[in-house]
């Protein structure tokens, strides 16, 4: 046994040594070097921002490399209270939380219906939904402003949440339809024979079966909703109701040099942190779900 397995290994090694010259090691080294440089370009800005978030404005203006003399945690306090990041954070949690629930409930219901029931117009509705993925949102933004105004939802957190979820629907339906279509029909038939109605079948059979798809889409939607920028900037003019992204823009835009740089860096760190945590915790599931998207 041992000799049988050992022999080919030796053989391949020998062949590689003769056919692939020293260039092999150089190519390998270059590949590694390229990736290391890329990794540094990704990581350095974050590390620098993190370090700067502990400096005073004066130290920030001194040199990009001076280390903070002590960890100025007051930057975080200032950003949270004076710059209003705390309020924006809470608003964001409300809007994104509400929008996420709405998106997942409406998206999976709609996708389920489109995937598993045949009726006239099914295909047309599906295409209409998917078309929403490609329109530039800027075309819609002006009429949308007045629609929300007419509904009395302009500048309100619930109005913002429902708008977020309306714009997240196409993406959610697009990815959920193939998933529901792939679930075996026998399950619904068995449920029907056992006397379960449509509602029951969906909530006690389909939703549990679709949990992997629902949870990965929830993560992707969370990131997307958290990062939403144009919708709040255009539709949420009241400063007390700002969400994080628009609050950040307002904070950074206030005034060139009178700005509290330490607090600005701290605010950036606090905006990044929630998504970083979600990403690191669910990283595996997230990459997996991108694979689903890559097929189409």
């Amino acid at each position: 046994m041992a000799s049988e397995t050992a022999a080919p290994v030796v053989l391949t090694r020998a062949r590689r040594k003769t056919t692939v010259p020293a260039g092999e090691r150089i190519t390998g080294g270059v590949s590694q070097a390229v990736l290391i440089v890329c990794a540094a370009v990704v990581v350095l800005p974050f590390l620098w921002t993190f370090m700067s978030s502990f400096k005073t404005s004066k130290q920030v203006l001194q040199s990009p490399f001076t280390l903070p003399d002590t960890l100025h945690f007051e930057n975080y306090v200032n950003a949270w209270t004076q710059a209003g990041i705390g309020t924006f954070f809470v608003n964001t949690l409300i809007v994104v939380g509400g929008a996420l629930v709405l998106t997942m409930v409406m998206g999976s219901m709609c996708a389920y219906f489109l995937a598993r029931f045949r009726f006239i117009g099914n295909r047309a509705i599906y295409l209409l939904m998917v078309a929403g993925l490609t329109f530039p949102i800027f075309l819609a933004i002006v009429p949308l402003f007045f629609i929300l105004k007419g509904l009395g939802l302009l500048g309100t957190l619930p109005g913002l949440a429902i708008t977020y979820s309306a714009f997240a629907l196409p993406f959610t339906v697009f990815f959920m339809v193939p998933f529901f279509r792939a679930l075996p029909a026998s399950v619904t038939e068995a449920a029907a024979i056992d006397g379960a109605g449509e509602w029951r079948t969906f909530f006690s059979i389909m939703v549990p079966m679709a949990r992997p798809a629902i949870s990965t889409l929830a993560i992707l939607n969370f990131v997307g909703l958290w990062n939403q920028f144009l919708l709040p900037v255009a539709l949420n003019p009241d400063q007390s109701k700002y969400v994080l992204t628009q609050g950040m823009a307002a904070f950074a835009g206030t005034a060139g040099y009178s700005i509290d740089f330490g607090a600005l860096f701290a605010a950036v760190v606090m905006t990044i942190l929630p998504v970083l945590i979600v990403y690191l915790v669910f990283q595996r599931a997230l990459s997996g779900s991108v694979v689903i998207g890559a097929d189409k």
Partner: protein
Amino acid sequence: MTGIAPTLPTAGGPSRAARWRRKNLTVDKVSFAAVFLGVPLLVYVVLVLSPFVQAVGYSLTSWSGFDASTPFVGLANYVKAFTDDDFVQAVQNSVTLVLVLPIAIIAAALALASLVTIGGSSSGPVRGVKGGEFYRVLLFFPYIIPAIAVGIMWNQIYDPSNGLLNGILTAVGLNGFASYPWLGDARTAMIATMFVMFWASVGFYVVIFVAAIKALPAEIFEAARLDGAGRFRIATRITVPMLRANIRTSLIYTGIFSLDAFVFMSALNAGGGPQNSTLVISQELFKTAFTKGQFGYACAMGVVLAAITLLFAGVVFLVDRLTGGREDLTEE
């Protein structure tokens, strides 16, 4: 059997789905359809679909938004747009972005994905470079953090005197950059902005391409290598043609991303940059609508933006068709 709601599958693809018959309608089913299809559809039509349609209508009016009057002006807004120097500049900048960024992002993403998946040592099985998985996770990270945070961070990095970039450049002896304003000089503002957008999005496409390459049968790479193909040749002659469908979709998405660019511009040069060198359509539209209150005119700008988006998608499909032909290895 006939009393049971979802009829048994007949034949073919979507046959699994139940067919609805009028005589079978019960309270359960009607309420189910109303809520499951009706509610999401209503929200979608009111908040997403109807604004798009209305925008086209508004673009033909000189509506100011403050009263109900929407005076019809025909194509006057479009004529005005293309005689407006700022808007023409914005269109040029947006077109520059959409011509440069998608290709740069996709090319770099393909190269990195190839390194991560098939760039490894050419002895033994085909594999990526050491730690490929780690790089894939790391490179994806900029994509998930809010674009506004990315923009603000890079605005600080580009800062002429306190920024990280000039700090590094002077530290390695390039003193000419001691206080060079990357975002404040019309020669570099656009390139610096493009780099930030590139930085923020390339990782996403690396992940997509890594997944797609891993889905390809490994024998293809083994066979190519036995035939003496090197890593570069494998990447250009095998990976790229086989990922044709993914590349096409990714190009269209990066195109939409490049034509928007609003967040990045807001963070890096909110006013349009030195000599309007980074002014894009979306910024001009936003300003026209929400600070000038010229809603009809802003909608016309939106239609122009949508038209450019469609044109870009059309070009991508056309090029794909022209270069693909029968050599197309994908299943589509």
